[in-house]
Every structure is written in structure tokens, then in C-alpha cells.
């Protein structure tokens, strides 16, 4: 590991000022669970680290202005423990629970999980399925961006120089909305996703599907929404045939690669099978809707 300097700015203003004077040489350290590994392997060698793990402006979970606002430096353990998240974004809490082990969850942050921009990022399907937006602060002030537009490809985001992801904004779910998160790994804990998926669905008074949102992880260059499957379902009855057809569409519209965790073809089968399971559980009239992530 190349030697580096370490700074811990007390305020957001100090951080932005520091980033400005670092001139692109600095890196942000939140949980460090990805950054540290990359530095140890020599894949990243920042000269200057800004520790933002305790930056107050990025540490809150609040309900405000029709959104659930989650600071980028909130840890996975904090997401799991938050009553607000449990009530307003249960599938996000489930995604956090699915990540790695307790030690990592105590450090890893929501913002870090997003900006690392892994196609297999555990939290991102739950966020995308909730139509989350990113609040970004930088030299030009604050700006808001749909999360889907922030994520450009493996390891690539739309963050500009000196920009920092500050908060994630989740629109509040409509009444009767249900959401679920599933993760398939090679083992039951501490697994990188083979695939992951999150879904949200609301049924209209006539029993038809109002809105359907399906997000798929680890089957495309970024976490993706299964738009074709969603469109197919909207306004339809949640019949067995319709759910199976939508699941098949999800399997078709993803573009998985083959890697050490699974084959591309296998991932398509998994997407279809688990999307089907997801939709069945979302549409189930009885039983609880607490998500399961036990592949």
C-alpha cells in the first residue's frame, strides 16, 4: 500500500474545501470496506483520504417532504436497526441484512455501496425499485439525480470532480404498496450476489396491478429495472399466467455475463425463477410480506 495522508473534515464545508484543494488527488473514506481492499491490492492509490464516516450532514435518517432521506454515511447496520426504514423501505432493510457479515455491516455505508457502482451492490436493487434519487453536493452546489442516472457502469458514476453523494431520497410508498428483496448467493451468508432482485407492487381496488417495479442486480453492467416486465404487468390481473409471463420477460431483458459465481445462462434462469417467486409473494393475498433473502 502506498503511504497516504488522512484528513477528517469536521463539516461539509471543510470537506468541499479540502476536495477543491486536493485537486482530484483525494478519495473519500466512509466505511472503507471496498476502498481498503482496493488500496491493499494496489488497484487504488489515493494520496489523500477524507474520512467522512462521521460527517453529520450525511448521517441522518429522516422522513421529510414526502421522502425518506437517508444520509450517504449511514451504515448497513443502522439501516437494519432503523424503525423508519423498517416501515417505509422494508426491502432496503432486508438488502442491508443480506450484506456480508456483521463486522462489515457495521462499517459499510449506503453511499459507499452506491458509488462503488458494482452491478452486484446489495442495496441498489431495493433503492432502484423504490425510484430513489441521489442528492449530490459539489463545487456547483446541490443537485438531485435519479439513482438510475447516477450509475453508469461497473465502477462508473455520474459524479463529477469534487462531487459527493450526500443523501439518498426515497419517495414515500403509497398505501398498500408491498416490497420485497431477494438475493441468491453461493452460500447463505457473506456472499456476493449471483443475482439479487427487489420488487414493489401495488394492487388497485379492482384487483388489477397498479404499479409494478422490479430491479435486478448482477445481471447487467449496472443494477437495472426490468421495464418490459413492469409494463407488461401494469393494469393486468395478477394471474398465474401473467406473473409467469412477466418473470419470463425479466429473464429475457437482462444481459448477464458468465463469471466465477454463475454462468450467464444460469443467471437468466435464476432471474426468471426468482422474479416469479417475487411476484407471487407480492401478489399473495395472505401471509406476511416480510422479505426473505435465503436463496
Amino acid at each position: 500500500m502506498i503511504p497516504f495522508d488522512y484528513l477528517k473534515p469536521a463539516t461539509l464545508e471543510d470537506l468541499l474545501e479540502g476536495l477543491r484543494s486536493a485537486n482530484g488527488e483525494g478519495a473519500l473514506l466512509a466505511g472503507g470496506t471496498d476502498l481498503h481492499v482496493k488500496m491493499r491490492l494496489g488497484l487504488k492509490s489515493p494520496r489523500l483520504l477524507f474520512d467522512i464516516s462521521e460527517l453529520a450532514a450525511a448521517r441522518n435518517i429522516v422522513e421529510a417532504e414526502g421522502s425518506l432521506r437517508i444520509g450517504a454515511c449511514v451504515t448497513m447496520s443502522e439501516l437494519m436497526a432503523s424503525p423508519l426504514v423498517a416501515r417505509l423501505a422494508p426491502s432496503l432493510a432486508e438488502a442491508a441484512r443480506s450484506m456480508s457479515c456483521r463486522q462489515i455491516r457495521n462499517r459499510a455505508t449506503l453511499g459507499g455501496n452506491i458509488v462503488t457502482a458494482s452491478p452486484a451492490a446489495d442495496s441498489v436493487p431495493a433503492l432502484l425499485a423504490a425510484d430513489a434519487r441521489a442528492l449530490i453536493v459539489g463545487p456547483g452546489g446541490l443537485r438531485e439525480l435519479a439513482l438510475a442516472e447516477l450509475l453508469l457502469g461497473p465502477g462508473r458514476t455520474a459524479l463529477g470532480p469534487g462531487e459527493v453523494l450526500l443523501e439518498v431520497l426515497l419517495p414515500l410508498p403509497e398505501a398498500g404498496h408491498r416490497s420485497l428483496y431477494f438475493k441468491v448467493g453461493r452460500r447463505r451468508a457473506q456472499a456476493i450476489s449471483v443475482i439479487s432482485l427487489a420488487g414493489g407492487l401495488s394492487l388497485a381496488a379492482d384487483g388489477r396491478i397498479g404499479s409494478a417495479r422490479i430491479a435486478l442486480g448482477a445481471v447487467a453492467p449496472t443494477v437495472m429495472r426490468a421495464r418490459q416486465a413492469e409494463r407488461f404487468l401494469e393494469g393486468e390481473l395478477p394471474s398465474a399466467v401473467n406473473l409467469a409471463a412477466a418473470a419470463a420477460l425479466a429473464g429475457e431483458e437482462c444481459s448477464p455475463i458468465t463469471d466465477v459465481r454463475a454462468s450467464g445462462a444460469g443467471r437468466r434462469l435464476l432471474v426468471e425463477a426468482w422474479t416469479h417467486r417475487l411476484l407471487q409473494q407480492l401478489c399473495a393475498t395472505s401471509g406476511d410480506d416480510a422479505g426473505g433473502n435465503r436463496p
Partner: protein
Amino acid sequence: MAIGSIVGKGVARVDARGKVTGQTKYAGDMRLPNMHHGKLVFSPHPRARVLAIDCSAAVAMAGVKRVITARDLTGSGRYGYDVAHRPVLVAEGEETRYIGDVVAMVVAVSEELASRAAQAVVVRYEVLPPLTSPRQAMAEGAYLVHADAPGNRCCKREFSHGDVVAGFARSEVVVEHTYKTPRQEQAFLETESGVAYQDEAGVVHVLSSLQDPYGVAEDIHLALAIPKSRIHIKGTPVGGGFGGKLNTTIQVHLAAMACLAGVPVMLVLDREESFIFHAKRHPTEIRLKLGAKRDGTILAMEGEVISDAGPYSGRSPEVVGLTMSALLGPYRIANVATRAQGIYTNNLDSGAFRGFGAPQAAIAREGLLDKLARELGLEPLELRRRNFLQPDSRPASPMLGDSPVSLEALAEKIIARMGPKPEPAVGSSKRIGRSICFDMPVFDVGAIPTLGKSGVGATVEVHSDGGVSVYAGGTELGQGITTVLAQFAADQFGLPMEAIRVEMSDNWTCPRAGRTSASRLTFGLGNALLLAIEAVRQTLLTRAATTLGIAREELRFVAGQVQSCSAPERAIAFAELAQLCWDKGDNLREEGWFRAAEDRYMYGHTFMAAGADVAVDLATGEIEVLKLANVLDMGKVLNPVMAYGQIYGGAVQALGYALMENMVTKDGLAKTPSFAEYAIPTAVDIPFEFVAEGIETPYPTGPFGAKGIGEAALNCTTPTLLNAIADAIGVELDAIPVAQEHILAAIHQQKRI
């Protein structure tokens, strides 16, 4: 043994307190005055010619003590078990054979500096196309990984018994299939590590995590031309080995660095280095064919094994040979023709791993037995029982063996332990499958005739205060041998466990005990220690008889005394007797030397049964191991806590092998180079119901009737899981690991047919 004997009791491990409290010093915890740090420069290419090595930048760095290349080495510069053809360092002009080959090494004042200096060593390579599969390496005209190995054949073993052609001709049903198994990583927690220094007398001391101090000394002698009398190898507490530290790992490199740099050197591989460096379980392809009569009587077996031996020979001939031998399993098969080859490639190295080639064989054999059962319309268990070796039958195997056959007893036990097969909930998409498989894992009984490395020694010393030291050159890998030997000594001297201290794994203080492998220590080292103890006991008895005025035959060792059997009040305290012997000049330090008769069979057999219930969700492919049971005939359970611990541990490794583990290489490069990519089971992957049991059919020559059990649970546990999954989904499976995607693919494939 005496009632109340400590043997057979689940006494606490003698090393438990140190390990649990963190007091145990592993090699990486050591600090020596003026200790420097080493770093190896690995070849990034599986096959490349080393054109030039430029060390000048590294040498110029402040704090760098020495940069070493092949030209600095004295001696042959080569080492390796059996065939010493592995270069310590690949020289300019030579070719690398895999990405674990080392081209240079650096000694510096700190770990960080050593690491940076290693990066500053500039090596120019001519990159050459590697051989990345045995098929490719066997093809006509393929380049030779070793010039003296035509066809890239590392080893070939053949076995025939009876008349296999006639056997198949008489068969009414013939089944045949090909099975593929992946490369499995030992995944020990402690990476290869050690410290070495040369003292003022020229002795090289290597303190390192290893499984065979004597083999390491041999390799250092061979490679560096250091006289054997000046090589001291001390095994440090091992944080997991499982065969991965059986070959010499970093110890030759350590010794060379210490001698050439003239300072104590520590070397600890990081996880990625460790994963590419040591030899793993052979990826194996097995074509197997069975012929049987309609009633299930198996008449013939034909088998062909092709294993990826990786770049160096090492244990491959022995492992691949055992894969072939183990194909027969615990069954009567009159006509057999089997063949096995290990093939050199430029992939990661293959070698010893708990089970030593037998787990691969069990997957093919037990899988094909289920296929045969389906063809015959027989219950798989019934087919197996009809072909069990009988108590009076000798296995038609090149390994033979003399263990009492207890398969029917094991079958009864496993059936009872499995109980009724569970049913899935009504309307569920889950199906439940069951399998019961059998095996006869081997343990070395000390007479491997071709190797002549079979003798095992152990020393015991009774001190004048009545304390006891045992010197045993085997290695504690976590299997519990230290505790077992202490139990033996405590039992035989009638002393508490606390009175016994066991020193292990040191080629200076301990008589030669050979390698820690083949589940051999309890048998070999245990027997040697009992011989040594008996010699000291006789001296003690003679002195006690004289002192007490009682015939020797009347005396016994019990409760810290030597006392009269008929009149226990007539006694002398053990410590008092020891002091008396000391004063009188009696020798209370004896060496026991155990060597089985030359014509003895190579192996004993730890017969085993494994049973599994597995739920598979047909809709999602989700696999849930509801129950996994292993029952072993251990001869005598010496310490139930440790014995069952061994079985649970082996079964978890078997489960990982079945469901998730695969050390993937592509173009000779590691694609799963760390624990982020290489998945092994975690605590939550353990079966819901997990059973380990033993039965005890005394093994006549085993210490207290015991057998070796260290590897056994791995053997047929993997095929049991695989067969149970296949039973659940109704589709044959012939490759591991099996994950959700494979279940879905198999079901889809079947729907299409």
C-alpha cells in the same frame, strides 16, 4: 483398558486454552532480534521464458538487505517430494510453469519495504501459450511442461483383477457415465508462514507452519546443499493444513533468504499468494462403467481417471493412484480394470487434500451405483447392501487391508439415525431427496513398501519430579494428536492429563515420525509412543518391585501411584518412584520405534456410511440440506469430543465441495484468488440436523483398537449430498459444485427431452 481410563473420554484439548485465549504463538506472531521480512516475486504468467531479471532498483532502495535470484543459490536449486524438479527460483533462460513459480525474493527491514522492493524487481518475460487442461496437454504435439515427461504424463497407475471382459459379457445391465470434479482449496486460515535464521555454528533454523518437518529438511538439503546435521526444522502451531502444507511450502525460500541475507527472516504469504502457491485437490474426470446381473450382483467395473496434476509432481502419483484404488469402494467386485493418469498442465498445482484422491472416486462410484439401481429398479441402499464386502471377503483392491468389515452394522446404524424420510408441505414446490452412501476411507498403517518411509518413532521421558515429557515428531494440525498422545501417556502411567507435556514437530528433539498425512498419526505415532512408554514402565516397575518388595506382575499404575493390585495400600507415589530411579541412575527416557511388518498391507480402513436428506425447491433451484449424518467405524473412539469434531469438520468440507467450492482458473490464471470469490461454507450453511456417530469394531493392531479418522468424513459425504439432490429433482447430476443455477438448468433440460 482399566476402568476409568482417560482413553475414550472427551477430555479437553491440551492446546485449547492457548488457542481460545489467543496466547498461542503462530509463526506469524514470532519476533526475533534484527528480524527482517521477505517477499517473493511471483511470475504473473503461467508459462513464460524469463529473459532478464533486473534487481538494481530494488537493491538501491534503503532498507533492502538482499535481493536474491536463482544465480545466488548454492545446491541444486530444486526440490520436491518424490521428484525433486521444482525450482526454488526460476532462472534467466528458464520457463515458468505456473503462476506460483517464484523468480526472485527480497529481504528488507520491514514487510512494507520488502513488498515495495519486490514490485521494483523488473522481470522481462517472453510470454508463451500455457497448457490449461489435461486433454490439451495429452494431445499429440503438445509442448512438454517437463522435458522428461512424454505426453505430459506425471503418473500412470493401472489395476486389473479377474477378467473384466468376461465380467461385462455376463452382465445383464451395464451403466456408464463420466463425472467431473473441480479444484478444491484447503482454505486454511493461517497462510504459509515462518521465520528462519542461521546461527553461528552454521545451523539453519526454520520455524514454520508445516505438516512434515522431515520432508522440509530433506528439501532444504536437496535445494541448498546444507548438510542435514545443520538443518533444524521446528513446526509451529498450525492454523489449518488439510494437506495443503504437506509438501514443503515456503521453507526452502525462507532458509535461502536467511542464509544469503545473514539475518533472521520472516515470510508470511498473503491470502492471494497462498491461494496461488500451494497444491490443491486435483480436478478430476472419471469415466466409470459397471456391469451387473438383474439381481444387482455387480460383476465388473471399468474406470478411467484423468487428473490435472498441475505443474509439479509432488503428491500426484500417490493421490491419483488412490483415486483409482478407491473407485472400488467397500463392494465386492470380481472383475476390475481401472487406470489413472495425472497430467501436467500450467494450471494451479495439485496435491494432497484431506481424502487424498478418494473423494473424487466416491463421487463417480456412488453416483453410478444410483444410476445402476434405477436401471435395475432396486432401492439404491439395497443394491449397495447386496454388494457389500463381507466380513470374510478381501477387497479386490490394490490397497487391500485388514480391517474388520462392519458395513452391515453401519447400514443399520445410519438407517436408524436417518429415521423416516420427511415429506414436503402440501402444495410446496419443494421436493425432498435422500441418499445413503458407503465408503472405506484408508489410513496409513505404516508399511508403504515402495517409499520405505514407514518407520515412526516417539520418545517419552519421566522427569525426577514425576512429570512426563513426550517427544513426537508428528504435527498438530488441529486434529488433536497432541491431546491423544497425552491421553495415552496419562493412561499408561496412571497420571492426570496435567502431568503430561507433549512436544511435537521438531526434527531435532523428536525421533523421525514422517509426515502428518494419511490419517496416520494416531495409529503410527500412538503405537510408537506406547512402545516407548512400555519400556519406561518396565524400568519403573522393576524399581518399584525392589522397593516395595512386591512382584512386578502384582503392580499397576493408577491414581498417581504404583500400587499392589491385591493390596492397594501398598504403594509408592509416582513422583517418589521417579526420584528414586533418578537417584539410582535408572534411564527413564526411552524411544519407541514402530514399524509394521514389511509384508503388511498399506492401509487400514475406516468403514463409513453417510446419509443426507436434502430439500430442493423445483421453482427456484434452492437447495436446503435438512439432515446430514456420518457414521464411522473408528475401531475405538479415543476422545469423542475431538473425534466427532473431526467428522463434523470433514463433513462441512464435503458440503462445500458439493455445493459451492471451485478454485477456478482461466488461461492458467486464478479467477477466485481470495475469500471474496472462493466461497466455503459459513456457520449458517451447516445442515439443520447434523449428526456424527461412531461404532467401535476394534482394529487389532491399532492403539487401544483405534483407527485413523482424520480424513474419513470427507470421502462419501459429497456424493451422498449430490445423490440426495438428484433424488429430489429426479435428474442425474455428474458434476460439482451444484448450485441453484445447475438445478434449474437440469430441470429445464429434462423438460425439453
